[in-house]
């Protein structure tokens, strides 16, 4: 489903005195449908750049990132936006729409897909109930706790049944209880057949999951194990 083929990303130097920065170097791996893959590494290892490439926010300096047979860096405009609709994103800083209520944040995804209001009125409360936010349906993100905001981000990420859910450090701002909750939800999403890609530097989470782990160090894949552990 997602394939990294010899991907290298080099950021040019900001001034003649500095050297170009290599963030990813000859990265190759493949993620299949329905897999749960943790991408681990220290801060600055290149995890976020890798996630950004899947979303079409960064393009490789060389190599290719393929999503369902399409080279992502060749996509632009509506075709790139269509690809993004197939990916549910969960981020450390939640990336919620602050001016919209809990209901509207989730409904927005269905609205951009052109779903009718009747369907939205049914689907959104269902997902919010499943995620435990149905009582805060008219609240704004600023009125929610960190854990609630992240659950809202998850509700938004799964409302349209995307092919892939990408979680970039989703527990970075959460306490242990909320961390456990978020990871449990991600596991449930995976159990119903969705592909989940989790980028994290949280050792405990990865070790408890017992799923495939791709370890990145200084921009290179140094380990890719089917039931791996966080070892750096």
């Amino acid at each position, binding site marked *: 489903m997602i394939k990294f083929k010899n991907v290298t990303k080099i950021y040019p130097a900001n001034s003649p005195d500095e050297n170009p920065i290599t963030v990813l170097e000859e990265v190759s791996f493949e993620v299949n449908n329905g897999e749960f893959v943790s991408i681990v590494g220290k801060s600055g290892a290149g995890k976020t750049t890798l996630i950004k490439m899947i*979303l079409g*926010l960064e393009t490789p300096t060389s190599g290719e990132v393929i999503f369902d047979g399409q080279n992502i860096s060749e996509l632009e405009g509506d075709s790139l*936006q269509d690809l993004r609709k*197939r990916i549910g994103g969960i981020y450390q800083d939640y990336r*919620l*729409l602050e001016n919209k209520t809990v209901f509207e944040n989730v409904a*927005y*995804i269905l609205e951009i897909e052109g779903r009718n209001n009747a369907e939205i009125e049914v689907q959104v409360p269902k997902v919010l109930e499943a995620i435990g936010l149905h009582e805060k349906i008219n609240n704004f993100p600023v009125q929610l706790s960190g854990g609630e905001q992240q659950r809202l981000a998850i509700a*938004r990420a799964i409302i349209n049944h995307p092919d892939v859910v990408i979680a970039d450090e989703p527990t970075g701002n959460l306490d242990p209880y909320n961390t456990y909750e978020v990871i449990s939800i991600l596991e449930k999403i995976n159990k119903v057949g969705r592909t989940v890609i989790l980028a994290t530097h949280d050792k405990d989470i990865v070790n408890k999951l017992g799923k495939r782990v791709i370890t990145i160090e200084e921009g290179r894949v140094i380990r890719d194990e089917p039931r791996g552990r966080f070892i750096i």
Partner: protein
Amino acid sequence: MENFNRALKFAVKDFYRNKSISISAVFVLTLTILLVTGLFFMHGASSYLINTIQNKIDITAYFEEDAAEQDIISVKNDLQKNFPSIKSVEYVSKEDALNNFLAKHQGDKIFTDALTEVGGNPFLPSLNIITGGDTSQYQQINNALQSNQYSSIIDSVDFSEKKATIDKIFSITRSVNYAGLSIGVILILIALAVVFNTIKLIISGSKEEINTMKLVGASNWFIKAPFIIEGGLFGLVAFIISFLVTVLATFLITGFILVILPGFSLFDYFLSNFFLITLVQLVFGIGLGVVSSLVVVRKYLEV
């Protein structure tokens, strides 16, 4: 259509939810519309003033004492036929000229004594001519009157005596027009810059939100439309406020304007230009709101 309704719904909600921002935008747009309206009224008042002054400029052709009235009327008709720019030609007979003089200097002993001394009616029949044009047109009329065709009946034309004054008045009114236009253009440009920057500040506050919308797959149109409609809403509300202020202000200050500019009723001017003023306000309000939003939001869409 459903997409448009959604964009409209987003815009209306944002308009209400971000009250302080909406008020700022509406305030700036209202000031701009009122500035443009004010310039429009200033133009009306200055045109009226210039017109009034120019209408006071005339040249007079004095006829021989024995010129027949029908010959003078014939000259008047020739002038009106050959010079379409002529606003009016007034025939003043010998008797009218004397009566006008007496009425003007009634009770002034010096003038009545002077008239008695001269004896009889010393005035000549004349044509007072006013054109809508500048000095060159008066020059052309003067040339026509001084031609051989009328030399037997015309005694004199006072153009040469008045030429300097006419030149000066037209030069001043031209300068007033240019100055008014330049100041108007400068003020409008300043107002446009203020409106654009206000909208820019408002939308820049939504930069992160726009990035997130792009990230979840919203199309450019879906992101842009609510901002553009919201810009239009700012303009619409600003237009309504400006319109009401204009009606009220013109009604209230008409009396004051009549004192400093007799004959010019601001309220009547507003009523006679009602549709044009309303259209200008509407176009400036909604147009500015929409165009500014469109330009600014496009900048933030390049994610």
